[in-house]
Structures are given as C-alpha cells and as structure tokens.
C-alpha cells in the first residue's frame, strides 16, 4: 500500500472506532478541504453512507460560496446536516467586523462558544430537510458526546501534540499536560460520565496529502480554493473578514499540488492568511484550550 492508502486506512479505522464507541456522535464540517476529506473518509468507512450528523458552525461571516456548496453536497449525499450559531452575540453585534471586539474574542464567541453550546444542545440547532432543501429547528436537544474533527498535526504547534482520541472536560477544555496514553491502535474509549471526546482521524495527514487525496478520489471541493481569473485563491478557508486569499494562479488540483511542493508556497505556513493566529502569540493554544478546533 502506498502512503495515501495507509493514511486512508488508519483514518477509516479511527472513524469506525468512534462510531462503534459513541452513541451521540457527530462530525464537524467546516466546508474546508480537510473536513471535506474527513466527510469523504466517513463515506468510505461506511460504504457510501454517513451514519451520524454533520455539524456546521455558521459564524454568519462565511464566504457565501461555502454555504451554497455545503447545502448542495448535503442534499446530494443525503447527509443529516445540522447548523448552529451564536445568535445572541450576532444580535448584540459583539463581533470583530462590527468593531465591538477584537479578532480573538470574535473567534471565541462565534466559533468556540457557538460550537460548545451547539454540541451541548443548549443553542437552537437547525436541520436540513432533504425533501424541501430548507433548514428547520431540530427537536433533538441531546448533547453530542463524541465529535469527529478534521485537524492536522502539521497545521500549527499545539495541534502537533494532539491524540487521535482526545478527552475534554465538561467545559470543553483540553488538559494538555494529562493526555491519556494511546498505544498502537488502542485508543481511550472509556469515559467517566460528563466528559466528552474529540476524535482526530486526520492527525497524520499533511496539506499536500489532503490535496493529493482529493485528486485521487475526485472529491468535490469549494471553488474558492482555485484561482477564478483574478490571480488570487484561498489556501485556507474561514470568515471573510479574517481570511485573505493568496496571490496564486493555480486553477487546478495539479497546479495547487505543484505550487505547494515545489512552487512558491513551499515552506510557507498554510495559515499565514489567518489573522487570529498572529494575535495569539503565534500559537492557537489559548483558543484551543477553550475548545477551538
């Protein structure tokens, strides 16, 4: 088996293990390339089906193409699509684009907090009706106790220290100094009531692995990753006020892969277009300890 096949196999094993061990399981889908690969791996793990809900946190500042693409795939692949957001913060305009808080605080409110209370079921959750294509209030208020997340170890420092199965306490906090041992393919799947778990099937994948796999499997990705003729494309997707496109002519998967491997993006950090990273002293640790992905 080659490198991509090995990566795929381990990820499938991890996703199946999560499905087996956690009754209230969901997968986070940010619409970006990594979590889309994760979604694809779930389809491979379950032979074309996705037997758990996909959760998307809508900050209201996502690039519109992302939302269109999300709903198109959700309909096509018959996903249980759940959307949540921090309505209160948005109503009170406590956001960076509205000028009331800084970038870090904005991330904390619209992402970390929205995620925390969407997972716990305390915020209103919306479910896509696959017949009508419209979102409706989801009656299920049960908290998710297992959350599959598409982070990669090569993204930044604190992510390189993650486990495949990572426990979080009731406050969603990450106790970095006391991570459980993870021997061979035996993961921590026994939990005291009240804790929940994040599962990271993509930990060993690099940015190039992701693109090569997208090419190999012909996975549809959102068009923002490609140059649309203006000499710009997104390398990493987020909210429009804080994510800048990069200068790049890459129009195809091959061109993107070439650019990352040998072209001008070789040795340039992937998240260099993300402004919130810079305000956290170069690491996302502060945000991530509180539950940021």
């Amino acid at each position, binding site marked *: 088996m080659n490198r991509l096949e090995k990566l795929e196999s381990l990820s499938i094993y991890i996703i199946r293990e999560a499905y087996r061990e956690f009754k209230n399981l969901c997968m986070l889908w940010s619409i970006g390339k990594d979590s889309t690969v994760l979604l694809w791996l779930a389809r491979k793990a379950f*032979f074309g089906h996705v037997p758990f809900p996909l959760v998307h946190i809508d900050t209201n500042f996502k690039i519109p193409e992302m939302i269109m693409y999300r709903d198109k795939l959700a309909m096509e692949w018959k996903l249980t699509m759940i959307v949540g957001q921090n309505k209160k913060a948005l109503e009170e305009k406590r956001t960076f684009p509205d000028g009331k808080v800084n970038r870090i605080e904005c991330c904390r409110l619209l992402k970390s907090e929205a995620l925390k209370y969407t997972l716990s079921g305390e915020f209103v959750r919306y479910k896509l009706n696959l017949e009508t294509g419209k979102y409706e209030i989801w009656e299920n208020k049960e908290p998710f106790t297992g959350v599959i997340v598409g982070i990669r170890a090569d993204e930044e420092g604190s992510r390189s220290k993650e486990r495949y199965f990572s426990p979080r306490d009731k406050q969603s906090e990450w106790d970095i100094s006391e991570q459980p*041992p993870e021997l061979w393919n035996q993961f921590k799947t026994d939990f005291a009531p009240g804790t929940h778990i994040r599962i990271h099937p993509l930990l060993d994948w690099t940015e190039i692995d992701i693109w090569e796999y997208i090419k190999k499997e012909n996975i549809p990705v959102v068009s923002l990753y490609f140059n649309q003729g203006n000499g710009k494309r997104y390398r990493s997707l987020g909210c429009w006020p804080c994510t800048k496109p990069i200068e790049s002519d890459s129009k195809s998967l091959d061109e993107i892969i070439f650019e990352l491997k040998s072209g001008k993006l070789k040795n340039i950090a992937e998240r260099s277009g993300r402004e919130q990273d810079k305000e956290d002293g170069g690491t996302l640790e502060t945000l991530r300890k509180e539950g940021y992905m």
Partner: protein
Amino acid sequence: MENENNKDRLNIVVVGHVDHGKSTIIGRLLVDTNSLPKGKLESVKKFCEKNSRPFEYAFLLDALKDEQSQGITIDIARIFFKTNKREYIIIDAPGHIEFLKNMVTGASHAEAAVLVIDANEGIQENSKRHGYLLSMIGIKNIVVVINKIDIINYDEGRFKFLKEEYNNFLSKLNILPYSYIPVCARDGDNIVFKSEKMKWYNGQTLLEVIDSFEKEIVDEKKPFRMPVQDIYKFTAHDDDRRIIAGTVESGVARIDDEVIFLPSGKKTQIKTIESFNETQQSQIIAGMSKGITLKTQFYIKRGEVVCKTSEELPCVAHTFKVNLFWMGRFPMIYGKKYKIKINTNREIVYLDKILHIINASDLTTEENKTQIERYDVAQCVLKTLKPIVFDLYIKNQKTSRFVIVDEYDISGGGIILEPIKDEKSIVDKHVEQREFIWEKSIISPQMRASRFGQSPKFIVLTGTFSEKIDEIAKNLEKDLFDIGKNVYYLGSPKLLSGLESDFTTFDREEHIRRIGELARILTDTGIIFITTIVDLDDFESELLRSLNKPNEIIIFDLENILKAKDDIFILNTNYDVDTTLYKIKNILLNKNIIMEYYI
C-alpha cells in the same frame, strides 16, 4: 508532473534521558534540511532576543507555552519532514519519567527510533528504560546518537566507551542498533553534514542513517488476521448488504476463501470484498480497512478474529503469560477487575500471578512483589473471563499486543508471550470455592423435588429481538404455571431497576454473572427459573451453566447464535410465539419436565 503518491513515509521516534538533547537534534535536522516554514527560525530567534533568552533549537519544537517556559518537552509532537528518499514523521518524545506514558505513546506509533545519549552525562536511567521499552514495543530500526560530543572535546575514547557500555545493555534485550553516531546537535556536527571536528569518525551522518532504515514489509506473508471491528447493515438507506468491517492486520484473503471466526469457531466463505468509490476488489490484504460479506449469514460479534482455515490459526485461551508495562496512577493488584483490549476485543481480565518485576534500568529481576507499580515492567500471568484470540509475540506482533484499562484509563500495555494450558477458568475456580462453602440446608434437593413434583431448572431464552423473546418467556411461564409447575420468570428490566441499580453504565458481563448467581439460588429453592438474555454467546452460556452448577440449565436460541448442545436447543421458528412454545414444550416433555397430556 512528478507523482509522489508512492513516496514512502516513515515514523521515527526520538527518545532518551531528559536534557540529552532530543528536541535540539530534531530542530537542527529541520534547519539543516531547510524543512522549516519560511520565517519560523527568524521569528523564534526574535522571540528569544525580546525575552533575553539564548536561542535554542529545541524552541522550534516545544510548541506548548508550558514547554517553552520550562524548557522541557511535555508531550509528543509530530514533525513532518522529507528527504530526497522519503518523507518522515518525527515523533519528539519527552524524557522526563513523569511523561513516560507520552514517550510510550510516541514509540508505539513509530517504525524506527533514534536513542539519544549525552556524551558527558553518559548512560542514565531513562536511556536504559527507553531502550527496554523500545524492545518491548518491537522497534527494530534503532540508531544511537551520542550527543554533546563537544563538551568532551570530541574524544573518540569516551565515545567508544559509551558505545560499548550501551551495546552491552542493548544486546541483552536482543537489540542490535544500526549504528552509533557522535554528534554535536547544537553545531550540526554529523546531523546532516559530516563533521570536520571528528576525523576519527568515518560513519554516516544521522540523516544518512535514517534514510537507510528499511521498512518492514512482512505482514502480507503472515497468516490472515482480520479482527471484526463492526457489522454494518444500512437497511434504512436502502442497502441490504450485511458487511463485516475491519482492518486486516496481516495476510491476504480472496473471494471464495474459507474463513473461520474465532473464538466462536463459525466457518463460511467470503462472498464479496466491499469498499466505496473503488473498482470491485477480489482480495483484501494487510493494512486495508474494508469489509467482507459472507456466503452464510450467522451471528457474529465485534472482537472476533477472521482467519483462514487453510492457514495456521491463532491461540484461543483464557490464561496467558505476558510482559506488561504499567503506567497507571494506581498499582495493578490481585482481585481487581480490569479490562483488556486486544485487537478489537475487550474482555474482563484479572491479574493471576506476578512472575517477576524487571528493573528496566539494570535488568535485574525482583520476585515476591505483590503488586505492579507505576513504571514497573512485569512478567505476569493474566486471566480473562472469556477466552481471547491472540498470536504469540514472536509470530505476529500486531495481534499479540494489548492494553489494560483500569476504570476509564489505559493504564498498562504489553505483549503476550504464550498461552497457559489446562488452567481452570476464573468462573470454575469461583464456583468450586462457592460450592465448598455453600451452607447446606436440612431439606435436601430430592425432598424439594418430590414436594414440587419437578426437578429445578434454569431456562434461558436468547435471540436478537428482546421484546419477542420476552413475550415467549412470559407465555412459557404462564403455560408451566397452568399445569401446576412452580415457575418464575424474571425480565431483565426488573433486574436493572433493583439488583443492578449500582450500574452507572450497563455492564453486560456483570449482568450475566448476577443472573447466573441468582439462578443458582433460585434453582436451589426447587423452582423452574426462566429469564431472557439478548444475543447470548457460547462463552456466556458456558458462564451461566457453570454459575448455576450443580443445577441444570436449558437454553433456547431463536436466532441460531449458539452451538447446539445437550442443553442448548436452536429453534428456527422465526420468533412465532405459538410455534416456539410448542417446540419448547416438546423438548421439556422429552426431558421429563412436563407430561405428555399437557401438550
């Protein structure tokens, strides 16, 4: 364009005693191979300047804030890096004893290891302990790096002395390192570039050595082993396939191959190999996570191992000898219930006997210890409630390694050395002891039997649909009652609300144990005791039979889950209440439990 899909990736762990320079070596390796993102080196240097601290290469890796402020590595980090030959994930493992579980975690995901020793401090406790753990984890590709050689003035004599001393130790563990390299990681000597300061050293640089490591590719040639991870049937999504999903640990299997599920012993042939977005496959090989469908449909559980009948089969045993490394917060003790996770199986396990504790830093052994303490390496005997499937460590590493879970935490890890045969199972031992101290009544079982006109029986109904077997059991109780039998039916929910109110989560093994003990008491009163248990397997039925001894059990299986026996009857009645009751009563008639005129 060059297609690099096939470029290999090797996981390497860097281990050694604290402060011997593991993170510095990796930092230097990254800098000298231009593997860092643009600006990273400059920004870390600037950060050091601003905080008036001397720059260290280790800061490039110690990403966590606590690590930077304390100058130590707390948890493993994965670092990606590549050479012309292949790609690497370097796993930077911490050297402090209190982070040993993190080191073991890192090493268990590696295929090669760099062992770092400080030339000045020499071989320390963790240099040896890490060496020992690497041998237990089974890493064969090992290079030893003697770092900080500048402090001892690049002295060849000292290098040779350390090499010999350490080699003596490693040879006792059957570790033969690929080589020993004298380096000064801070200055980059012999890391990527050959050092000019050590003319006496003609060997390879560290980079050259790791590039020459060879990956082991033997798993395909070993007998086929696929632990069942799950069984899927997505009927709700209009999919009627019943797929046995799993990752192949070793070997190859093809369509039409005859397979055996262990420990249940059920045999059939592979019908199809299942996957998604792929062309139809005819074989499934080591490393693949796919699925199979079977020619015969029978009941299978997660944890069973699919093997081929044409090949050597694994061991199936409930008592076995292991090497165990303990890292739990509490010691491992006798009499306490633990869980063992091996392959995809999870069973209850007890510590049966400590053979000896090995001191990993000098390899001396200590007998007479009564518990296994944190960071101990022990050779011991474990006993599971049900037999488990495994290979011997020397035959197949992947299917011989296990972890031990204490409450909620993985607290130990190890490898199975050999099964121990002719040992009594935990249950047999317990029953023997229980019957020995059982307070005998003045009323004998015969007196009760003649009073009630029946011999006591424990009747269990099993199947997949709990409502249906409950309904049949209730009706059976009524029918037996109507003909004057002294009978009692207990449904599982009744047990759960009272006798099992101490369960925080449902514990199936304990549930079955309690039913078995309860049956022993109820049948001792002379009654016919009826209960239902969903998806009973062969070992659970054996457990109930043992626990109910000396009284008799009769099991009716409506799903064809069990192997038929003198006291196990398979009823292919499709859960139809009347037909099932008729068949059951016929069997009871044959066993003289009821008389002919009642049917």
